[in-house]
């Protein structure tokens, strides 16, 4: 599964790599990397980005 690893200051989030998450990350100043993780990985939510 493809996810965004989002990084801001000392915080790290993993969210599903969707357009909504992409723009939410941009809007809120998160840097990102695209990572592959196991399908059963528990992810953060869009609310966590905001």
């Amino acid at each position, binding site marked *: 599964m493809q996810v965004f690893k989002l990084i801001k200051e000392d915080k790290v989030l993993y969210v599903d790599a969707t357009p909504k998450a992409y723009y939410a990350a941009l*809007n809120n100043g998160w840097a990102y990397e695209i990572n592959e993780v196991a399908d059963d990985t528990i992810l953060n939510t869009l609310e966590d980005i905001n």
Partner: protein
Amino acid sequence: MIFQNFGFNRQLIKAAGAPAAGIFPDQSTKVWTSTETDQWLTAASNVFTIGNGVTYSSYSTVSTALTGNTIAGVLARNGKIYIAGDSGTSTINIWNTNNNTNSTLSLSGNTQAYSMVYNDYTKCVYIPGNGIIYVVDTLTDTQVTTISNPLGNSYFQLYSSGYDAQYIYGTGWFQNNTWFRVDCSNNTAASLSIGTGGDTLNGVMGRNGKIYVGGGGGSTNGYHVLNTSVPQNEYVSGMGNISDSYRAAANHYNGYLYTMPAYGASKIYLMDTSNNSATEARGAVTDNRIGTTILGADGQIYGFGNSANASNNANVYDPVNDVLNYITVPQRDFNWSVIDANGHIYFGQGGNLYKLTASNVPSATLTALAEMNGIIARMR
């Protein structure tokens, strides 16, 4: 057959007596050159002139009942706005600006549309889905086929034609920083095997036939440029290494592309397409989350916010006098805007569709807008 509408429209303009024949680009020409784009600018400077009396006041709500979480829209020659959502539905909305009615069309799968293209050569609308492009014929309002994203990834962006209307262009957005091209004559697509140099957001064709695309989160360039005639990737200089910066540009009749800031940037830039350079047009604007821009019938650039961090304002920029004004709008999450044949500016998101109503539009401007409905597919 497909060019009959062009001749009809041109006869209407001649009958109306304005503007003079020969000013407008010959729309029956599939392959444009700088001659046609310069004609566009000349025509626009005659009818979209700042101070021409056109006014936009408060917004009005056109509909609150669009289907799906709409996020993208495009106007076709037939006066209809094709509006699609970002996920979860296969239904698109078709808003008819001629009679203010909505109809829906069910596609063969869900849309994933953050960008849509109308092509006046084929009269079709191209709508992103999950790894595929839906092709909808606006003459019949039916889906005619699908085209696979040649890059193979789920999400991608689509951009207008360059000089040759046979082709529209796209990128792999944040998943694959590569350009691709759709051949609208046979509904095939192929990678150009040219890197974009970073994430790519919304884009528009410049007067030189190149595609100008705002850089996204993984980019250190304000604007990426596809030189469609080579083809090759280029950049706009003069904006510094600004990540997450710009995603909305519009052609102005003065020959420059204007872009309003998004995601951390703060300035309005004008871009000179003759040398791919950018110059600050206005610094330190307060509203720096602009998702879409459009040239109004009054010659001003209208920008709409696209973030919870944006304001509930349309940003109205007069590039001639360097004046920025605001019109209150009900939301701040807009990704598309169009101008119809009456000069009204439509924009929407989710189930909602709004417009800024144009008043006091001169007859020559109205006539021009009617013809330009087909042109905006190339030079929005």
